[in-house]
């Protein structure tokens, strides 16, 4: 006997009334949602082979258990297909992981969004965009999976602006902030294999509490050091003290230039780590650290992150254009760190 769907039901006459109800109850992100009927929710659960009462995650700070039924309802509302449900469930597991530290990034005035990086065969199969217009509208998977996670945060975990979400600016990525790694063209080890030691045939999603992407340009250099030198110079100054992670997204032209010099992702991380330090004097002059500048502050340096491994290198973005970007993480290493979770697909 399988468990039944137990959520409260509301009778409506038609689509317009359903939508009106969702708006009045505060269940949407501002955009219209797909009415979550029982049939659609059951199909969503079946997409991941989950029972309605299966607990996907528990948010300790909020004392909220997130079960599959509520995730499925919100995934339907976001416009997901049943095939997306395993990705949404894995991302929810990720943001509930103590290392991600839900309460901080979800609540803080610092306004993080949940950056999601999808890896493995599922990315291509479900047409997650990893190429041109990486963060643009137009791809159902990128658009709806990120939206589903945000609706779960809103409707299940209570992350409501003005209440338990106190963001100063918020973040456009809170509608959705999803990319896949371009594994088909990347010369490098995929992110999930690096982080989990899993197989390339596994699929995974990495969640990172993230600020906005910052693009940089280098059309001049034909070497790895040249391209990454520009990146480091751009990264260093917006850098704050103690960001937990940076995600560096290398698009087609830069990817090919760096690969032509035979640099691995580990080489890239090491170079970035070593070339993004700032002096204590700089931090003090720009009021990021307290106190007067002392002579020794000119030579004392701080790295951008604690370890090269805190830099996530991802091959993604358009084939054309001498641009890549970096995405700073939110807050500090003790507050939140990126988490990678295997996607449990339903066995056929």
């Amino acid at each position: 006997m399988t468990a039944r769907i137990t959520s409260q039901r509301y009778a409506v006459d038609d689509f317009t009334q359903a939508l009106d109800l969702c708006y009045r109850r505060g269940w949407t992100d501002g955009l219209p949602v797909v009415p979550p009927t029982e049939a659609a929710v059951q199909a969503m659960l079946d997409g991941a082979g989950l029972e309605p009462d299966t607990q996907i995650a528990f948010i300790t700070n909020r004392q909220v258990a997130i079960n599959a039924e509520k995730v499925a309802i919100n995934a339907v509302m976001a416009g997901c297909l049943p095939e997306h449900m395993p990705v949404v469930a894995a991302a929810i597991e990720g943001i509930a992981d103590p290392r991600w530290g839900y309460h901080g990034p979800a609540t803080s005035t610092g306004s993080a969004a949940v950056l999601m990086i999808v890896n493995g065969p599922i990315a291509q199969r479900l047409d997650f965009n990893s190429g041109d217009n990486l963060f643009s509208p137009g791809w159902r998977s990128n658009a709806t999976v990120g939206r589903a996670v945000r609706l779960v945060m809103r409707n299940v975990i209570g992350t409501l602006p003005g209440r338990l979400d106190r963001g100063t600016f918020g973040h456009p990525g809170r509608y959705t902030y999803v990319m896949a790694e371009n594994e088909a063209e990347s010369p490098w080890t995929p992110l999930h294999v690096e982080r989990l030691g899993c197989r390339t045939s596994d699929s995974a999603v990495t969640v990172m509490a993230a600020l906005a992407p910052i693009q940089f340009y280098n059309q001049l250099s034909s070497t790895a050091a040249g391209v990454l030198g520009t990146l480091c110079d751009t990264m260093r100054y917006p850098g704050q003290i103690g960001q937990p992670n940076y995600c560096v997204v290398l698009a087609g032209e830069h990817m090919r230039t760096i690969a032509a010099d035979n640099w691995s992702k580990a080489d890239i991380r090491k170079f970035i780590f070593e070339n993004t330090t700032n002096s204590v004097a700089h931090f003090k002059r720009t009021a990021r650290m307290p106190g007067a500048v002392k002579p020794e502050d000119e030579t004392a340096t701080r790295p951008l992150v604690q370890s090269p491994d805190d830099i996530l290198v991802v091959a993604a973005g358009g084939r054309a254009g001498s641009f890549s970007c970096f995405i700073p993480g939110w807050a500090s290493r003790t507050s939140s760190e990126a988490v990678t979770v295997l996607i449990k697909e339903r066995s056929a």
Partner: protein
Amino acid sequence: MAGFEILDPTVEPRRQPLTYVPRPDSLKGKRIGLVENTKFNSDKLLRKIGDILKTEYGATETRMWRKHNAGVPAHQEILDEAARSVDAVVAGIGD
């Protein structure tokens, strides 16, 4: 078109009883714990509050603990030590 039903996407938070320990009538002769949340200047703010509690309210001593970060509750070690060694606790934010 026939009507249909939609499902509620929200949950009711788990309700749990929360009882406060009795407040001390006076801080005279009491030991005060200060739980600092790692935010910039939160230690200074709490130290100042601790000084006021000693000079103006007769508390005998203060002791400070530091949480792992601002987004998590005080960890078990703090709770255990505070329960053993102080009579009242002040927790604060430094934003």
